[in-house]
């Protein structure tokens, strides 16, 4: 469904991605692990058209999407939840959700259905729907960011470290949300540093180091390979 082939990305002169190739099939949850600064977020930003790769090809459902603008990728069905969440802090929860919902092609009844669906998954967002986004806790903001991405009815969601800085209780909640998306057949590319969470929700996992994919395995294989986990993620 989503394929990166030998993608190279630079920030100015800094060569950040060195030929990254990653595939995500329809409905699949794929993990992307690695330490800080290895290129995980840059991989997502490159997919999402926020940085243009200098070489390589990105395709989505067979179509070449390399270099397409973010709004066009969103319309194709690629949702993105950045690491810093980027919720509108002064808008209410409902207004935040409507930024993804108020599209010409969505009928009023369908809008209500989509809202009800995310409220069912995130009851706290219904409770707080008239509250400013900036007043939510970190975990609630993360939920809002994911819920807002779901308003676009994406076929795939790119999640950038959704559990970073969250308490264990919230991490467990994010895991449930990923499971809900998976049950709805939404594919997920999950960037994480939380190894247990990633192994629990992902089918396959890529591990990056220094801008390149260094290891690729099923979550089950990786879970049994403590040496590899230690090499790329431990101390």
């Amino acid at each position, binding site marked *: 469904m989503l394929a990166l082939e030998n993608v190279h990305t630079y920030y100015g002169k800094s060569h950040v991605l060195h030929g990254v190739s990653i595939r995500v099939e329809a409905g699949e949850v794929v993990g992307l692990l690695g*330490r800080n600064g290895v290129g995980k977020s840059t991989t997502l930003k490159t997919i999402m058209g926020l940085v243009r790769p200098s070489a390589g090809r990105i395709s989505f459902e067979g179509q070449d999407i390399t270099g397409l603008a973010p709004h066009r990728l969103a319309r194709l069905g690629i949702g993105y939840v950045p690491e810093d969440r980027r919720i509108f802090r002064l808008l209410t929860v409902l207004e935040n959700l409507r930024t993804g919902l108020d599209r010409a092609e969505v009928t009023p009844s369908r809008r209500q259905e989509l809202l009800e669906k995310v409220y069912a998954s995130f009851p706290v967002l219904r409770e707080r729907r008239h509250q400013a986004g900036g007043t939510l806790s970190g975990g609630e903001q993360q939920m809002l960011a994911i819920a807002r991405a779901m308003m676009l009815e994406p076929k795939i969601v790119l999640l950038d470290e959704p559990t970073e800085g969250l308490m264990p209780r919230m991490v467990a909640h994010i895991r449930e949300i990923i499971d809900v998306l998976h049950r709805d057949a939404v594919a997920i590319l999950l960037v994480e*540093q*939380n190894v247990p969470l990633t192994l629990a929700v992902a089918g396959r996992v890529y591990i990056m180091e220094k801008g390149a994919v260094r290891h690729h395995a099923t979550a089950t294989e990786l879970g049994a390979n403590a040496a590899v986990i230690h090499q790329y993620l431990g101390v």
Partner: protein
Amino acid sequence: MTADRSRGLAAPAPADRSGAPLLETHGLTVRFGGLTALNNVSIAVQPGEIRAIIGPNGAGKSTFFNCLTGVLRPSRGRILFNGEDITGLPPHQISRKAIARSYQITNILPGATVLENVRIAAQSRHHGWSLLRHHRAYTDVLARAGAVLAAVGLGDKAEEPAANLSHGEQRNLEIGIALATEPKLLCLDEPTAGMSVAETHATVELIRQIAADLTILIVEHDMEVVMGLARTLTVLHYGEVLAEGAPAEIQANPRVQEVYLKT
């Protein structure tokens, strides 16, 4: 110590503090509103040591560097450098105490030549007016800048505009700019971030060479770099010292692995 550092290349001879740490923090604590970013951090770094500060995201590594370099004033605790209390001094005074920091985000002047970048930093050791009056001081500065460029492997690029350097060379120039201020303590903030494998190896070698006359604190996520350089590691987690020891001890510490793998 308030030695006159306005002339000469060599650092003034230190008072006899043999066996004493170059840098000590005592109970260093930083609060941002309700968030405690650093909690009671006490470390001691010996002269000549390369000390790595590691820890997952949000562990307090940058906050720690920010306190040492005067960017942040700690809420509580003390920082002693060469036995002198430097807690809360502003960055320019910290720099005069011979503590330098190389940043993750590059600080170079892209339009100036490589030599000029280093020379401007070297001049910060000298008073402007005396520079104009004393030719000797200027030749000293040039000699210092040339020596620094050689040390960071940019001797043959001295006349190039800094903008023409590769990313890796720019990062090494950044280290050169810090070195030109004649530090006793050099704080390196992710010196190999964004570097290729080959550039990383070259920078590790460079750090090893300059470390002969320096004390170095290094924050870095690349464990190969950390383990290859540091004799002692301090692991921060949620703003506290979780562990401290030699690389092998830290690698064998189950608490440290837990924190990194979030198990």
